[in-house]
């Protein structure tokens, strides 16, 4: 295992833990997007460019955006 893969594995473990421990979904949007990016780099280091591309489009962009819009929906009535 080269040092870069080792580093990415540890960063992904830390990123996942951080995402779970961020209790406020509003802040979680950013952490989740960052976690998606870390996963994507790890997949690239594991010689899986197809999967990295998939994770980059979905995990780092689409999923956090959906979470963001879902939060906006859930907050709506509290403002009235």
């Amino acid at each position, binding site marked *: 295992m080269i040092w870069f893969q080792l580093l990415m594995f540890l960063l992904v473990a830390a990123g996942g833990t951080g995402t*779970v*421990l961020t209790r406020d*979904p509003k802040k979680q949007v950013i952490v989740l997007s960052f976690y998606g990016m870390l*996963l994507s780099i790890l997949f690239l280091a*594991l*010689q899986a460019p*197809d999967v990295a591309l998939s994770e980059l489009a979905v*995990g780092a962009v689409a*999923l956090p955006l959906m979470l963001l819009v879902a939060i906006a929906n859930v907050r709506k009535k509290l403002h009235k």
Partner: protein
Amino acid sequence: MRLLPYIVAAWLLLTGLYGIVTSRNLLHVIVCLSIVQSSTYVLLLSVGYRTGAIAPIFAEHPPGTPAVDPVVHALVLTDIVVGATVTALLFALAVQVFKRRGEVDPARLRPLRE
């Protein structure tokens, strides 16, 4: 060292479950579930990895060059995209719960009595 990737996958699974069990917000539960899901990606790709091998794309390398396993890549890449749509369905359910009950804390949601 040879077990580290698998331990990272197990760690992600258990941390995600911990988040789900202790969560006070349905949206947070769904995100934790996606962390649990990502543990399977890490596990599958680690199982299919071979030290020093190339990606299973032979545009620049002749066929026969040692490459990593393409089957797990195919499994994971479809699951990432399909899983995102299912997560979106879960978000829609959470939004629906909020609209009906005005609440996203699972501990304060009681069974429907209508």
